[in-house]
């Protein structure tokens, strides 16, 4: 642990800005968005939640994969070489989400487009002291503290930050900078006090234990709840857009009017949209809103865990906030749990 006095925070950020693009939460129309900052004064560390998660810096909503000439068959990959970037003030839930994205994009065939951006980006996270919104359930999902992988993590101790370094990339943001002090015994005491004090500020929102989630969902495949919330769902895909762990995409070709030069582009897609799983002949493996919603929930609480060893939901609450039909993970999962308890052994 090291100590960063608060009055040196801006100096540190300005120092980082010399050789990095610095991205941080910024207020915009009463909400917060991650954006590049042009001065350390713009930095906000205590924000509630951002509209879009930081995944947009690794998987942009729209991205060129390669350019081509359809006549000559020449093709060249578009791997964006970004400048070294620091994303500041990530909440730990978003950090957990990036850990999942890293695992997915790095499993099997490594996605070079993701990798090129990710390699050049260091993450500075911050310990949450208060719930950021009603719908967050990070404590229930175990994402209320840093995951195994992190770069630099800050904990607010009042007039100073406790600074933890978790990687070489993190160390490079700190080393030789002169802003960081060695902690004293009182700093350690204060740190322990703050960490113990924050815990009761958060509630367990999920009625079952997180380790029981895959079982709950497994037992709820035929639940009538899917039809009930399916009735309300508009298939708008808003929930997947704002989700820090959603990464599905569609691929489209664009070509000029001479049908010569073009590019292949990927764009965010959503398993909530109609036609996402349709195959030739028109067979649709998830042909109703209820089926598609169920798939999304299964993915979040069961499938991703089975495939990648990490839950597909980090409890950030963004989907709940953005859903025009007020479908929320907490209400959905707790209702499934209630119904399971009401009729144990049977399908909920």
């Amino acid at each position, binding site marked *: 642990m090291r100590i960063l006095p608060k009055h040196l925070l801006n100096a540190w950020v300005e120092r980082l800005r010399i050789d990095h693009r610095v991205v941080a939460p910024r207020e915009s129309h009463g909400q917060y968005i991650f954006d590049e900052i042009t001065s350390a004064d713009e930095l906000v560390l205590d924000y509630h939640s951002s509209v879009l998660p930081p995944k947009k810096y690794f998987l942009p909503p729209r991205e060129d*994969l*390669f350019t*081509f*000439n*359809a006549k000559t*068959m020449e*093709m*060249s*990959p*578009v*791997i964006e070489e970004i400048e070294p970037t620091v994303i500041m003030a990530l909440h730990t839930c978003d950090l957990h989400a990036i850990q999942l994205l890293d695992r*997915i*994009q790095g*499993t*099997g*065939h*490594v*996605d*070079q*487009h993701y990798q090129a951006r990710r390699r050049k980006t260091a993450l500075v996270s911050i310990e949450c002291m208060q719930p950021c919104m009603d719908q967050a359930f990070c404590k229930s999902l175990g994402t209320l503290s840093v995951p195994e992988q992190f770069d630099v993590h800050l904990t607010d101790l009042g007039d100073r930050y406790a600074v933890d370094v978790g990687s070489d990339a993190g160390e490079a943001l700190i080393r030789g900078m002169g802003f960081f002090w060695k902690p004293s015994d009182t700093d350690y005491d204060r740190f322990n006090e703050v960490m113990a004090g924050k815990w009761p500020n958060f509630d367990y929102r999920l009625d079952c234990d997180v380790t029981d989630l895959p079982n709950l969902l497994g037992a709820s*495949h035929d639940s009538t709840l899917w039809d009930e919330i399916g009735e309300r769902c508009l298939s708008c895909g808003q929930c997947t857009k704002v989700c820090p762990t959603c*990464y*599905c*995409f*569609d*691929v*489209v*070709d664009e*070509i000029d009017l001479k*049908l010569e030069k*073009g590019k*292949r582009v*990927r764009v965010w*897609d959503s*398993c909530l949209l109609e036609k*996402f*799983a*349709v*195959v*030739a*002949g028109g*067979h649709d*493996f*998830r042909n109703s809103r209820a089926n598609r919603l169920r*798939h999304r929930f*299964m*993915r979040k609480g*069961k*499938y*991703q865990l*089975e*495939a990648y060893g990490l839950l597909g939901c980090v409890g950030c609450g963004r989907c709940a906030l953005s859903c025009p039909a007020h479908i929320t993970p907490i209400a959905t999962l707790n209702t499934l749990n209630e119904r399971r308890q009401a009729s144990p052994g049977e399908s909920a």
Partner: protein
Amino acid sequence: MTTLLRETLDHSSIYMPTPARIVAVEQFTELEKWFHLELPSGFTIAHQPGQFVEVSVLGIGEAPISICSSPARSNGAFELCVRRVGKLTEALHRLEPGSMIGVRGPFGHGFPIDRFQGKDIVFVAGGLGLAPLRSLITEVLDERGKYGRVALLYGARTPNDFLFPADLKAWAERGDIECHVTVDRPTDGWDGHVGVITTLLPKIDFPARNTIATVVGPPVMYKFVLQDLLAKGIAEGNIWLSFERQMKCGVGKCGHCQMHHIYTCQTGPVLSYAEVKDLEEALS
């Protein structure tokens, strides 16, 4: 020096295809064409029967297509059988010999042919399902001595819809593979079997314990074929099916092909019934 086609994925971008030349095209039916392709010199496709490639027409798009030629005979050349159903396949059907397309792959897992040795094998093909199975059948027939009894059950909509007629004829003539074909709807002059593919199953009397079944066809076919194969006593782990799903990437990233926790493009498309029987949505 030969380069495996799949190695190109790791060089630059996993989404960038390699150009391949169409060397010949044959029309099987109104909807289906057979493409003979050639990779640039020095490249080889090195696939397992049942694997697929992502085929591109630049400016139009990409789609997964099974390799229908045998691995042993592939080298830099390989074959695809393509049904015209939408954007990419229509564009492909308009191309003449000499045209270039893009290919990526081969992807996923094909049939675990090593585990078939010494076993009796029943190939069950519905319609276009014959394309991926042809790769396997050719491989098995080329090394005929390694396997027990071998049979093909093949169903098409009408007698005009048969694919690979020359192969069907050659196989029927070999005598070391039982061939049974059926049509849903006969046309004038058809004196063969009529009925859905399951009506051919009683013709096979292989001892169930030593039998492998490989099944490829439209989604609706699987439930009924499975019922009958299981009723015959064929072990769940000896029934191999190829799963069709929407696939946009082939590399486990786009999410479209997800079936339960499995990315069909990676873990599949060929999976055993034992692996999928408890997965919701796999066989619905």
